[in-house]
């Protein structure tokens, strides 16, 4: 009896939790399928209306901004390039750096370790003005490189790869050495294939991180050609309510799809290093 009672309590708490997560965005979604004048008079809606295709087509393809050069689809494309660039570059760079930290012992190893991990204390938000200055000196304002490079040396990803490499038994390296593998071969033929799950998890983590960046794209993209999802959020403040709801729903689809479908890989990777 008490067991059944406990399970019922668990289920009802979980259902409340799920509702807490879903209801706000459901309301936004349902409201995005009505006409603007209807929403203006009646407020947000629980039921789906009949304007779904019209609204989503209009928001995706209408030219916006001051010079009417960018559409929402263009904005999503930019954000995708930015997120993909940050994710690939940081996974690549962090894997190499972690390899260097774990498998080589020379005079500078400790110095390198500290140089990388001190950066955990200084996120972009704390060095935003000088970073802007440097990117502008390098002529990288309004470019994909400028959006990607400053965010792609992730100490967190390096840390995860380092933990993972350290958990790999030493016998592997001994055996590889006996078979005549040098440091390059060991990395490419042994470590890379072994860390597949970790690579996937870090890629997902950095993709979501890159896609969701706010401040950096906001200050460094003055040309509408390079606007990302965030600038779009600012732009639609001027639009009508329904366009704003539609835009919000569209903007959260890419990262949410990635998390929902690659959830298992993501969680496996995050926790296998412990």
């Amino acid at each position, binding site marked *: 009896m008490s067991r059944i009672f406990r399970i019922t309590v668990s289920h009802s708490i979980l259902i409340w939790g799920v509702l807490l997560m879903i209801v706000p965005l459901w309301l936004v979604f349902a409201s995005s399928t009505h006409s603007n004048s209807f929403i203006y008079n009646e407020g947000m809606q629980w039921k789906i209306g009949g304007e779904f295709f019209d609204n989503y087509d209009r928001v995706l393809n209408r030219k916006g901004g001051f010079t009417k050069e960018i559409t929402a689809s263009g904005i999503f494309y930019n954000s995708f390039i930015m997120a993909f660039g940050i994710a690939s570059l940081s996974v690549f760079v962090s894997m190499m750096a972690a390899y260097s930290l774990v498998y080589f012992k020379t005079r500078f190893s400790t110095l390198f370790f500290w140089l990388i991990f001190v950066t955990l204390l200084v996120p972009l938000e704390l060095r935003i003005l*000088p970073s802007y200055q440097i990117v502008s000196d390098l002529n990288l304002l309004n470019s994909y490189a400028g959006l990607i490079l400053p965010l792609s040396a992730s100490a967190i990803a390096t840390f995860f790869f380092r933990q993972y490499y350290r958990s790999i038994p030493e016998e592997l390296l001994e055996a590889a050495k006996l078979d005549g593998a040098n440091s390059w071969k060991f990395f490419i033929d042994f470590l890379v294939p072994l860390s597949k799950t970790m690579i996937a998890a870090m890629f997902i983590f950095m993709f979501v991180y890159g896609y969701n960046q706010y401040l950096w794209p906001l200050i460094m993209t003055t040309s509408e050609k390079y606007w990302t999802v965030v600038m779009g959020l600012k732009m639609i403040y001027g639009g009508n309510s329904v366009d704003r709801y539609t835009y919000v729903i569209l903007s959260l689809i890419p990262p949410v799809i990635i998390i929902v479908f690659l959830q298992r890989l993501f969680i496996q990777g995050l926790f296998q290093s412990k």
Partner: protein
Amino acid sequence: MKRVQFSSYFTQYFFIAPQLAIILIFLYLPIVQTFRDAFTIQDAFGFGRYFSGLDNFTFVLSDPNYITALKFTLIFIFVITLFSCSIGLLLAVQANNVIHGKSAYKTLLIWPYAIAPAVVGVTANYFFSERLGILYNFFNGLWGFDWYDNVYDAYIYVFIAASWKQISANFIFFLAGLQNIQKSIIEASIIDCKSSFRRFWTITFPLLMPTTFFLIIINITYSFFDTLGIIDTTTIGAPSGETKTLVYKAYIDGFKGLDLGSAGAQSIIMMLIVLVITVFQFRFIEGKIHYN
């Protein structure tokens, strides 16, 4: 560290070079500039730069607005960490209990992790706008809620928006932490102690401490830095700057006010705060945790 290693300088440097190059240009160079800005004053026309000692720091710290932002940030960190951790833990414990529908619950609770803080802020904005906002009207009916004028109502607004987003991250990590606890320990505790409530607080919760410790750091970093997107899309500091976090204030003073000296000094003060919190946690909290 591993005992068996390679000892080739060239390969070692080759592999670490890309990361070092990026952090030297885009991290260390900006940090050096931040220090230069913080200890100098530039004249209004940009002709000269004078060493000014601690002037920028005394200027920042004697500004009552800065103290307001500091107080708000500390309350903000505390409330977000408390709320999102406890709701995340509650849900993780229940999800670990049930047998049917576990993976469905997991998916439905994990997905908000992927939503950008700025998007959460804009969404919250719909619920708290004066005319159409459902929550605005609901709270307004209860006690005359009005975040445009009342400080505490504005607090409620940003607390709800910022904690909501962070529940998922806490849920993911607590659930993984619970699943890592050995079954034999739980079974043994069931024999010794009948009350599941007491069992949780005396056995499970202490075993979760490493996860909790890790999550406290994650939540502090989140509320300190990542919430900038939420503040900028919800209250924008209203009413009269009472809901500005330190990071948001530094951004506004630096970018909108173009006061480089003050922004530099603020950045260095924040680096010190982050450093103190990190050291404090490692020395005083981690020492009391039992890892098994």
